[in-house]
C-alpha cells in the first residue's frame, strides 16, 4: 500500500515535471535555431540535429533599423508600469483593507462584506468590457498611448487583489496589538504605521507578488490602449507572431520575459516554507 502510493506519487510528479518543463526546453532549443533548422523538420539537440547560432538572441537588442526587434525599451516600460501600479495598488489597497478589517461601516444595507465584495468584483469583468470605455476615457483626457494611462488602468486591475489578500491577512493580525499601541498614546495612524504594518510584512510581500504577477502578465489592456509611443513587452512579442514567424527570436524573447518572474517564484516559495503565506491566503 505504502509502496504503491510512493511509486504513484513519484510517477505523477515526474509526469507533471516533464509537462511543465517541456515548453521551456522547446523554447530554449528553438531560440538557437535558424530558418533552415526550423523549417526543415523537427530538430531537438544542438550540434547533433542542427548547428546552433545566436541570431535569435542578437536580434532582440538590435534596433529596428538594423533589422532587429529591440525589446529593451518595451521591457523597461513593462517593468515600470507593473511596479508603479503594484506599488500604488498595495498602498491604497492596504489602507482600505485595514479599514475594512478593523472598523465597521454601515450605510443602509451596505456593510463591510459588501464593500469588500465590491473591490473583488472588479475582477469579474472581462477586460474587453472595460477596454472600450477605457479607450474613450483615456482618449478624452489625452492619456491614450502613454505610460501614465496604462498605470491608471492597471491600478483597477490590481487593487482588488491587494484588498482581497490584505483583508484576510489583517483579520488574522490580533486586534490587541492595535489596542495596546492606542493605550500607549499613539494616534490611530501611528498605531497603524508603527505597530500593525511591521507585523504585516509577509502579507504585504505576498500581496505585492500577486500584483506584480497579474500586472506583468496582462496583455489585453496594453494591446488595446497603446499603439506606437509606448509598447509593453507582451504586445511587442506577440507582434512578432506575424505571417512568417521568426520562431528563434520569439522563443528567445519568451524566455527573457519569463526571467524576472522566476525570482518572484522563489520569493513566494520562501514565504510558503516559513508558513507565512498560509496566513495571507485563505
Amino acid at each position: 500500500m505504502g509502496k504503491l502510493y510512493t511509486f504513484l506519487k513519484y510517477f505523477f510528479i515526474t509526469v507533471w515535471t516533464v509537462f511543465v518543463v517541456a515548453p521551456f526546453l522547446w523554447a530554449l532549443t528553438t531560440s538557437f535555431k535558424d530558418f533552415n533548422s526550423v523549417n526543415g523538420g523537427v530538430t531537438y539537440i544542438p550540434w547533433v540535429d542542427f548547428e546552433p547560432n545566436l541570431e535569435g538572441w542578437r536580434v532582440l537588442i538590435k534596433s529596428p533599423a538594423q533589422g532587429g526587434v529591440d525589446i529593451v525599451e518595451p521591457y523597461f516600460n513593462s517593468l515600470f508600469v507593473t511596479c508603479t501600479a503594484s506599488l500604488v495598488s498595495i498602498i491604497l489597497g492596504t489602507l482600505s483593507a485595514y479599514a475594512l478589517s478593523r472598523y465597521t461601516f454601515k450605510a443602509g444595507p451596505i456593510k463591510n462584506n459588501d464593500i469588500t465584495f465590491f473591490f473583488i468584483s472588479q475582477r469579474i469583468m472581462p477586460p474587453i468590457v472595460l477596454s472600450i470605455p477605457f479607450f474613450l476615457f483615456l482618449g478624452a483626457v489625452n492619456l491614450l498611448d502613454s505610460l501614465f494611462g496604462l498605470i491608471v488602468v492597471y491600478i483597477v486591475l490590481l487593487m482588488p487583489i491587494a484588498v482581497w489578500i490584505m483583508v484576510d491577512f489583517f483579520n488574522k493580525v490580533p486586534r490587541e496589538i492595535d489596542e495596546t499601541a492606542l493605550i500607549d498614546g499613539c494616534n490611530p495612524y501611528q498605531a497603524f504605521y508603527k505597530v500593525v504594518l511591521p507585523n504585516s510584512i509577509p502579507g504585504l510581500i505576498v500581496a505585492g507578488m500577486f500584483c506584480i504577477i497579474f500586472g506583468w502578465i496582462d496583455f489585453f489592456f496594453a494591446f488595446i490602449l497603446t499603439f506606437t509611443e509606448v509598447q509593453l513587452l507582451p504586445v511587442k512579442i506577440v507582434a512578432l507572431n506575424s505571417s512568417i514567424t521568426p520562431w528563434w527570436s520569439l522563443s528567445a524573447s519568451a524566455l527573457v520575459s519569463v526571467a524576472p518572474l522566476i525570482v518572484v517564484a522563489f520569493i513566494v516559495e520562501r514565504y510558503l516554507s516559513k508558513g507565512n503565506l498560509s496566513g495571507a491566503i485563505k
Partner: protein
Amino acid sequence: MNFKHKYVFLFPGLFVLIGILIFPIIFVVRLSLSGWNSYNGLNFIGLENYIRLFTDDPRFWESFIRLSFLSVTTVTLQYVIGFALAHMVWKEIKFQRFFRVLFLIPMMTTPVIMTVIWRTFFHESLGPVNDLLQIFDVAPKWLTDPTLAKITVIIVEVWQWTPFMFLLLLAGLLSLPKEPFLAAAIDGASPIRKFIYVTFPLMAPISIGAIIIRLIEASKIMDTVYVLTSGGPGTSTETSSFYIFIKGLREFQMGYAASMSFTYLIIMIISLTVIAKVLTKLLLKD
C-alpha cells in the same frame, strides 16, 4: 469613537477605484442602449440591442455555453491536479523546494507569450508533439480540428493556471492544525481514510475560495484563445469575451457589444453566487 479615522483609511482606495471606474461603467450602460456609427455618433435606440441579443443571436449563447464548458472543465482539472500536487509536496519529499518552485513557475509566465510557444509546440508538421506521435503513425490536427482545438486550449489553460490552484491549496495545507492528524494516527486510520475524513473536510473552505477565484479568472479566458486559435476553426473555440471582442473592436458594433458585455456581467455575477452557494452546501455539510 474614531469616527473620522476609519474613513481616512478606507476612502483613498475606494474613491480611486470608483473614480477610475465610474465613467466606464456608466458609459457601458449608456452605450448598450445606443446604436453607434461614425456618421451620427451615439443615438439612443432604447432596448433594441437587448431585444436583438435575446431573440436573434444564437452565436452569443453558443459562445457562452462553450465558455461554461471550457471554464468548468479547466477549473475542475486544475483543482484535482493542483490538490494532488500540493498534497504530494506537502510532506517530506526529496527536492521538496525544487518541486515547489518548479510547479509555481507556469503561473509566472505571460499567457499570450507562452501561448505563442505552445502554438509552435503543437504545429502540425514542425512541432515536436506531432513529431513524437509519428512513431504511432498519427498526426492529430491540434489547432484546426474543432474538437481537438478545444482540447488544446484546455491543455494550455491547465498548464498555465494549475500552479495558482496549487499555491492556494498548498498554503491551505500548510496552515492546517496538527491535532486532527495526530488523532487520526492514534486511531490507526489508513492514508485514504485520513484523506477522506480529515484532510479533505478541513480543506473545504479553502477549496471553495480557490475554485471561485479560479472560475472568475477562467471565465475571462481570452489571451489563450486569441493567440492559439483566434476562436477557430469556425467558431469552435470562440468564448463570450472573444465574441464581444469581435463584435466591438473588429466589426465596431460598439453599442451591441456593450449590451452583450452588460448581459454577460449580470449572468456571471448571478451564476458565481449560485455556484458559491451550491459548493458551500456540498462541501460544508456540517
